[in-house]
């Protein structure tokens, strides 16, 4: 909503000829009033179109031709105040500046040149206003608010200097003109002096306004605010005082604003006196009438201010105005006056006792006043509707009297429907703000309103007469469809909605009714189990969407329909269909960006799920890359189409993060970094700016992880280091009680992601990308490991884990490590050892119990480097202390297994199967190392260890197979049969066999065993 003062100043500034002096009479094309009315109605686009039209029209008067640029500039400035997006506002101001500048260049001596100069200075004021308004947005943090307000004040100071210069220029211009009587025949001189006075008045009024606006950027009780308000009041008073006799309009305008300043200073008495003086003053037509209405609004605000609290006085003023000035219905100020009048009646009623007969009359007056306002679209309409929810009104449509005509039933139904809508809307707003005190009342109001509306509407449908307008009936049908949808009567809602859309496509209710039908079928679809009902609902949804598109092809309803269907398909996992529906969205449909982002994310997640389900070592099918490419396209397209919204939500942020992850996956870390840093939607930019959407811990962690990977891969090591430090700080600041463990988990996950990436690149044969990624990480890890300060257990552990992950990425399974893998295993081993050494020196270095994991990690590296004995010794040390540590047991079994594969060491298969390193525990001799058999047994009941279970069972069978190959004869056969049983028994007891990931491996192994046993290699039975 534009500030009332600004509307006034705008009106004043651009309508100066109209306000200050009689305008040109008898003009053929009434351009000035038409232009003014277009601006007042906020149809700035039409005003600009009109000026363009006039530029080439034969009807254009010459006086308009000269000022086209000026009027366009003024229109653009007014338009800028109504635009939400800062970039659009700035664009409009730039265009205004350009047009005003063009006017001044071409018409330096034109009578409007002074106004144009002032308007150019006003551009500074507008830019200041933008900053001040931006500061008030709820999303602004205190520091940002402070910064913006300071910038606003600086712009206002600049504007004040400009206006002061202009004022001095006009004072000089006036000094050069005679002050006394001028010969009446010297019309030119008279006009010049009149114009000079107008210019000066205008400059002083605008200057005073700027001072006022600057005052409002300071906190309410601040000294500076009061100083500035007093200054503004004095300036307005000066204009009023000096020009009151000569200038019919500017003087009362200034006086009104003087009163406003006193109001804002809290001097309500003085303000009230000034307003009363104006209200009783001369003039009730044209601009004076408009000014009086604005003054009335201010006067009512004073009377209703809690510190004044004189609703009776407000009522008196309001009623006096009402009696004198009917017929101003759609004027926004008049509506504002009526709202205040309604409030005054309510407050006066509230002060009386419930049994006071005057109360009923006041409430009735309040109702009548506010109900009148609800008939007119505009910003006050909503306010009036909310006020009509006041408990003082009670339940107005009492069912004691039954409607007897269609019109009565319709009106009652509509009133009840609107009551429910307004209560619903207000409840949502309140809940968003955390206000819950009225929630229960609203819920009751919504339920009662809907029930009343339904009842009355159904009555109305039973009272249709031949002359009843069809459109009235259709509106009722639409509302009923809506009500049925709210009450989950989906079939009823769908029937009513489709009926309207099919039979009355020209009705204003047809399109929204079609969407109600679509929504009803969608909910039926969601609620139904797979089967005929679900299929039916889906088919109907398609039919409705097709019908909407056919009838209203370029409509937002058509776009909404396909976007909804695409979303449903995504949720149902049918991505092919989702793509099909998405393609039906017009290119410029408003919902296309959101739909693209949803689809892109869904495709990315499907890609990741498919990758996870692959058997180890299996190459992904070629079509999967196409899925990834599509995901990327949709995400990039959706982000590019995002309107210049004020605030990005979590869904958009998540989509941007997905795009960055895809870029990382594709070996495009620079692109990923660009996405993360994008000022509009980049997750990193938003996290740094502490935006609400980016405040969740999960979001912060994922963002910094992605940033770390992107910066490392692009060798922006300083940024990578900062990202890492920021991540650690964010987790600690988040108050996570297990911050250290959380950080470790994150680093482990990061290492895992890197490993996955390298594996994927290796499978795809992208050796160059692999080398680039690894090189970048190596540099970064070296940097972190070697830094003198700032290293913690977590950072070093991350280095060690990441190096292990890189080594594993280069390491092909089932053979000795490659040269690259060996290099990284050595580095990883050294890093692990460093941590253990540091932990030995300083007890506080590592969190309690954390070094066990480090030991296991070290053992893994040593195993792959072929240092089995050393690896096993380290693991046994751990297992002595923590015998049930599953990771260590698994690593030990692996070590035995790999050791056994080296020449002459087949005996270690038996240790891998049954365990080794016996010790005395609880009076019995048991193996410290369990081996695969016991591992499987120990974890078989643990759902979170099912992967370990299947690894153990598989390796158990593998070890038996490999061991059997070192045997001959019956011993070989029986060992092979045992291996076979290992697989078949597992399959019998666990038919799923851990899913596709493990099943494939069981199947291959069984076939191999069967072949060696001389059987047909049929593998596992089909599930």
């Amino acid at each position, binding site marked *: 909503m534009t500030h009332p003062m600004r509307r006034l100043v705008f009106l004043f500034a651009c309508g100066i000829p109209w306000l200050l002096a009689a305008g040109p009479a008898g003009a*053929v*094309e009434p351009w000035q009033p*038409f232009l003014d009315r277009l601006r007042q109605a906020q*149809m700035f686009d039409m005003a600009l179109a009109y000026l363009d*039209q006039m530029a080439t029209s034969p*009807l254009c008067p010459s006086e308009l031709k000269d000022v086209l640029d000026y009027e366009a500039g003024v229109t653009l400035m007014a338009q800028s105040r109504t635009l939400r997006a800062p970039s659009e506002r700035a664009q409009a101001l730039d265009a205004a500046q350009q047009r005003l500048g063009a006017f001044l260049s071409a018409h330096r001596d034109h009578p409007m040149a002074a106004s144009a100069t002032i308007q150019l200075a006003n551009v500074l004021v507008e830019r200041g206003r933008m900053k001040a308004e931006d500061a008030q947005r709820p999303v602004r943090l205190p520091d940002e608010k402070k910064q913006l307000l300071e910038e606003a004040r600086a712009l206002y100071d600049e504007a004040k200097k400009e206006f002061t210069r202009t004022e001095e220029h006009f004072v000089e211009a006036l000094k050069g003109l005679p002050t006394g009587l001028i010969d009446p025949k010297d019309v030119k001189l008279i006009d010049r002096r009149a114009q000079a006075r107008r210019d000066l008045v205008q400059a002083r009024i605008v200057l005073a306004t700027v001072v006022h606006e600057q005052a409002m950027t300071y906190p309410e009780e601040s000294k500076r605010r009061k100083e500035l308000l007093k200054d503004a009041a004095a300036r307005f008073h000066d204009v009023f005082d000096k020009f009151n006799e000569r200038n019919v309009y500017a003087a009362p305008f200034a006086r009104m604003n003087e009163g406003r300043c006193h109001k804002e200073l809290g001097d309500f008495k003085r303000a009230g006196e000034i307003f009363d003086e104006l209200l009783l003053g001369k003039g009730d037509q044209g601009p004076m009438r408009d000014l009086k209405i604005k003054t009335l609004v201010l006067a009512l605000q004073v009377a209703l201010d809690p510190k004044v609290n004189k609703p009776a006085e407000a009522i008196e003023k309001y009623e006096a105005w009402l009696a004198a000035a009917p017929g101003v219905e759609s004027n926004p100020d008049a509506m504002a006056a009526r709202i205040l009048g309604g409030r005054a009646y309510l407050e006066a009623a509230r002060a009386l006792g419930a049994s006071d007969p005057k109360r009923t009359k006041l409430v009735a007056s309040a109702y009548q006043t506010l109900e009148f306002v609800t*008939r007119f679209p505009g910003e006050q309409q909503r306010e009036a509707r909310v006020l009509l929810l006041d408990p003082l009104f009670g339940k107005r449509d009492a069912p004691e009297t039954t409607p007897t005509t269609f019109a009565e039933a319709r009106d009652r139904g509509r009133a009840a429907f609107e009551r429910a809508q307004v209560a619903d809307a207000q409840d949502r707003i309140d809940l968003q703000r955390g206000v819950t005190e009225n929630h229960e009342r609203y819920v009751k109001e919504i339920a009662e309103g809907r029930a009343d509306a339904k009842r009355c509407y159904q009555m109305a449908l039973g009272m249709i007469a031949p002359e009843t307008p069809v*459109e009235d009936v259709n509106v009722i049908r639409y509302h009923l469809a809506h009500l049925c949808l709210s009450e989950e009567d989906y079939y009823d809602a769908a029937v009513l909605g489709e009926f309207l859309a099919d039979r009355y496509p020209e009705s204003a209710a047809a399109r929204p009714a079609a969407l109600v039908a679509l929504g009803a079928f969608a909910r039926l679809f969601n609620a139904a189990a797979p089967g005929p009902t679900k299929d039916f609902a889906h088919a109907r949804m398609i039919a409705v969407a097709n019908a909407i598109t056919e009838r209203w092809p370029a409509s937002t309803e058509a776009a909404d329909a396909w976007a909804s269907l695409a979303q449903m398909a995504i949720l149902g996992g049918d991505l092919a269909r989702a793509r099909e529906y998405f393609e039906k969205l017009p290119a410029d449909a408003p919902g296309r960006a959101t739909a693209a982002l949803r689809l892109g994310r869904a495709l990315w997640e499907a890609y990741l799920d498919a990758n996870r389900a692959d058997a180890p070592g299996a190459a992904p099918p070629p079509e999967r890359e196409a899925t990834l490419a599509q995901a990327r396209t949709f995400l990039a397209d959706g982000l590019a189409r995002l309107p210049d919204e004020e605030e990005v939500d979590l869904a958009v942020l998540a989509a941007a993060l997905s795009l960055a992850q895809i870029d990382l996956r594709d070996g495009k870390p620079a692109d990923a970094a660009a996405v993360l840093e994008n000022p509009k939607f980049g997750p990193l930019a938003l996290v740094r700016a502490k935006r609400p959407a980016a405040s969740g811990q999960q979001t912060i962690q994922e963002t910094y992880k992605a940033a770390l990977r992107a910066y490392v891969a692009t060798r922006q090591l300083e940024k990578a280091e900062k990202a890492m430090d920021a991540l650690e700080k964010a987790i600690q600041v988040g108050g996570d009680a297990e911050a250290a463990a959380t950080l470790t988990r994150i680093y482990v996950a990061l290492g895992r992601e890197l490993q996955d990436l390298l594996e994927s690149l290796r499978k795809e044969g992208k050796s160059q990308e692999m080398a680039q990624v690894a090189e970048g990480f190596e540099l970064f890890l070296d940097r972190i490991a070697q830094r003198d300060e700032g290293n913690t257990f977590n950072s070093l552990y991350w280095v060690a884990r990441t190096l292990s992950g890189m080594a594993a990425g280069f390491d092909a399974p089932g053979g000795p490590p490659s040269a690259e893998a060996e290099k990284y295993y050595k580095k990883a081993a050294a890093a692990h050892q460093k941590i253990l050494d540091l932990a030995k020196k300083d007890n506080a270095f590592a969190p309690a119990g954390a070094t066990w994991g480090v030991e296991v990690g070290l053992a893994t590296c040593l195993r792959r480097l072929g240092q089995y004995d050393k690896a096993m010794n380290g693991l046994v040390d751990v297992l002595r202390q923590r015998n049930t540590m599953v990771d260590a047991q698994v690593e030990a079994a692996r070590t035995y297994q790999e050791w056994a594969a080296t020449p002459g060491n087949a005996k270690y298969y038996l240790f891998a199967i049954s365990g080794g390193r016996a010790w005395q525990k609880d009076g019995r001799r048991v193996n410290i190392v369990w081996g695969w058999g016991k591992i499987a047994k120990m974890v078989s009941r643990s759902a979170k260890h099912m992967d370990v279970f299947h690894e153990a069972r598989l390796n158990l069978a593998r070890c038996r197979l490999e061991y059997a190959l070192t045997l001959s004869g019956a011993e070989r056969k029986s060992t092979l049969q045992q291996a076979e049983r290992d697989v078949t028994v597992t399959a019998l007891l666990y038919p799923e066999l851990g899913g596709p990931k493990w099943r494939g491996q069981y199947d291959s192994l069984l076939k191999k065993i069967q072949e060696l046993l001389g059987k047909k290699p049929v593998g596992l039975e089909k599930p």
Partner: protein
Amino acid sequence: MRLGQFVMILAVGLGMAAPAGALDTVRLGKTPLAGQITGMTAQQVTLDRQTGSENISVDRITAVYFEGEPPALNLARVAVANGRFEDAQEILSKIDASALPNRYVVEDVEYYKALCAARLALGGKGTIREAGGQMARFVANYRDSYHWYEANELVGDLLVANRQFAAAVKYYAVVGSAPWPRYKMRSDVAVGRALLAEGKTADALAAFDKVLAAAADPQSEEVRQLAQLGKARCLAEQGQTDQAVQLVQEILAKSDPENAVLNAQAYNALGAALRKAQKTQDALLAFLHVHLLYFSSGEDHAEALANLAELWNDTRQPQRAAEARELLKQRYPNSRWVSP
């Protein structure tokens, strides 16, 4: 104080010239003629003045004020002149018919009541049938009223709005039977409009051309302009949109910008022609002239709003379209422009 003196003081207070001893006033343009009305027919008003009796042709008369008429009657006339028919209706409803001094005042009150009902119905408030009946009764009962020809024309207009074209033409023919060329032209323009409303564009064009072919004189200038507007509508219907636009622009170039009715009709005609020519933006601007500047003429405002609602939809501005439709339904609920 005598009633006559009281009325004289009141007349002065109302800004009317009140020569000594004269109690009825017949205004011819800006010139008031005072005297006593001794006779009245549809064609003339007989005024006894100090200089003698004078028969004043009705086509010269701008207004008549009667001795002893209630002040409210003049307030109602002022309201009617400003297009505030509802206000006028309310004022007239409070006049006590039994206290009216003579039949002329009674006729005047009846006429203005019927006029308000007719104008409101044509603008979409009230019903056409009832208003038509009321005005038809006036025509039947007050054949000697100086408003008689206008009343016939209004009945015709109401019949056209009710799509009873043949019956309308009969009433227009009565207007055409008046002894003044301007009334003949008015009748032809009215018939032309009826034919256009009926979809007989070629016949309507012929009717308008007939008016335009007649000799021009200052008294009939406004009627000629209305004929020109009608012709523009016909040309637009026939696809000759450039010519239609040019015709309307000629009228706008000459018209008094304060003539709300003429300008409203002109801008609507312009908008219709531009719309036919698919110049949507220009058409919007034309209709916006009516909506923002010349909205006092209800029927024309309703037409503008209906067109604006459709054009806003075409230019994908559903909010503005909804506002225009809403305003149309609220202000002119029974207008033919409200879509069924």
